[in-house]
């Protein structure tokens, strides 16, 4: 059996998304900046795509800028807010300890330039409150950037409450909604979001294309200089097929948000319940307030990469936050942020489901996983020490 359970990393493209892009690769392949009809066909398709994306998040078409993915949108939003702040002498930025590296590394760069970056600590269930944001805002705060939902442990953040706080205090608010778009209801006006990032490949669209929403009146700073594309805010001939496909994929997901969420939540909860039967393991994040497809657990006494590769040999695709999956010495900053000790964080497993996963697949994972965990424990000196009482169990 083959089970793809790594949808937080990327998704399989939908038939709708694939079909949408094909005409713009061969039939209407023109450059949208060209004046001839094949170019203008492409320009028209982009205009429609912009309208569709705007409609999915409660924005206006002119507030949408297409980018080369989620990371680029995050970079551009943060750099924009920083430059606006800098002009007013405001150099304090608030974010959280468990943001994606697209945000954290951009902030780190700004820190080297003299910005003061304040990363809010995360609760043990992966929660951040609007009160934390309110308490952290200072007169010189130029940006609050808080993710909509966490990619590793699935936490859903109180974005509307944070938006209200930011609006009241007059601070720009950006949210990395890469894991949320197409999966959670988003209304940028109702939620007082000034800037928002999304990426097509997390909702069955293609990789390497994303969008940045910026409330009208916010003067975006270029990350890529070039021609007059995207109102001069993002140089480079547009990825027309990708953009059209992004819009089609987002629309399809947004049209089925509640029904998908109900289906995936049921699968997720069955999976979590089954996995927690394995001794000395624990769920990471909040059991209820989490993305419908996200399962993230730590197993004591084993290491995540081995677990992943053994699952892969059984046809199950998953992820881990272990250090050895990356070759660094530290495991996932997200698991450390919620207080998991290194020893335990190395043994993490993320399974992320989508609406195409089935109950049979969940049953298959639950049939294979316990044996693999038991085998890896049987060859682990750490497990031996835990079992013999030489070391104390943490989980």
């Amino acid at each position, binding site marked *: 059996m083959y089970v793809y359970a790594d949808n937080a990393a*990327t998704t399989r493209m939908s038939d709708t998304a694939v079909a949408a892009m094909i005409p713009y690769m061969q039939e209407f392949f023109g450059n949208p900046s060209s004046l001839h009809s094949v170019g203008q066909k492409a320009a028209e398709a982009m205009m429609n795509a912009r309208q569709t994306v705007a409609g999915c998040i409660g924005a206006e078409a002119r507030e949408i800028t297409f980018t080369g993915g989620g990371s680029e949108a995050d970079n551009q939003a943060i750099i924009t807010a920083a430059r606006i702040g800098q002009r007013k002498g405001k150099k304090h930025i608030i974010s959280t300890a468990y943001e994606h*590296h697209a945000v954290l590394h951009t902030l780190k760069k700004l820190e080297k330039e003299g910005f003061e970056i304040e990363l809010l600590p995360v609760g043990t269930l992966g929660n951040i409150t609007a009160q934390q944001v309110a308490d952290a805002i200072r007169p010189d705060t130029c940006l609050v950037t808080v993710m909509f939902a966490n990619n590793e442990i699935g936490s859903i953040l109180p974005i509307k409450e944070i938006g209200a706080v930011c609006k009241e205090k007059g601070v720009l608010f950006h949210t990395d909604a890469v894991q949320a778009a197409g999966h959670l209801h988003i209304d940028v006006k109702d939620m007082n979001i000034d800037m928002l990032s999304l990426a097509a490949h997390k909702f069955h669209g293609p990789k390497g294309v994303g969008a940045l929403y910026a409330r009208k009146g916010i003067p975006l700073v270029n990350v890529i200089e070039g021609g007059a594309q995207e109102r001069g805010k993002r140089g480079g001939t547009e990825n027309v097929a990708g953009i059209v496909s992004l819009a089609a994929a987002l629309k399809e997901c947004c049209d089925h948000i509640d029904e998908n969420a109900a289906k995936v939540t049921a699968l997720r909860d069955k999976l979590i319940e089954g996995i927690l039967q394995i001794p000395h393991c624990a769920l990471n994040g909040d059991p209820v307030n989490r993305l419908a497809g996200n399962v993230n657990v730590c197993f004591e006494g084993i290491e995540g990469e081995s677990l992943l590769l053994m699952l892969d040999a059984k046809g199950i695709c998953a992820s881990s936050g272990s*250090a050895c999956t*990356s*070759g660094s010495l530290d495991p996932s900053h997200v698991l*450390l942020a919620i207080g998991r000790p290194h020893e335990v964080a190395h043994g993490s497993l993320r399974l992320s489901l989508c609406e195409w996963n089935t109950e049979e697949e969940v049953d298959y994972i639950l049939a294979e996983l316990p044996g693999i965990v038991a085998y890896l424990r049987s060859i682990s000196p750490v497990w*031996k020490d835990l079992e013999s009482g030489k070391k104390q169990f943490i989980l």
Partner: protein
Amino acid sequence: MALYTDIVMKHFMTPSNVGSIENPSGVGEVGNAKCGDIMKIYLKIEDNIIKDVKFETFGCASAIASSSMATELVMGKTVEEALAVTNAQVVAALGGLPAHKLHCSVLAEEAIRSAIKDYYDQNGIAYDPALFPAFDEEEDENEEGVRMV
């Protein structure tokens, strides 16, 4: 391209010499759970020959495959020959490892040396301490932590 060679995958999926030895002549344990790889090697030595060797490993595929390969390389060797086995030999026998995985394989060499030192110590065999430099933790690499998408 796959992350690991076929030889690495074979030693990871079906490792040789897994387990422990009752009343071993020497035991070595290196690494720590904090950095993500721990390796324990058990030796049975008779007449200066390694008659049996077993390992237990907490770690990634590179760590497990390196343990397995290292035990194969020292089985039946004299203690001196085993001491001469290097990390580079383990890696070469595995058909290579990705650069960022080399640090996981270093533990195999260290675990064997540590088990031999234990054997020397237990049996009052004199040796040059320079043979066993303290294995220092390499903390230099990447302060970043894993990058998960």
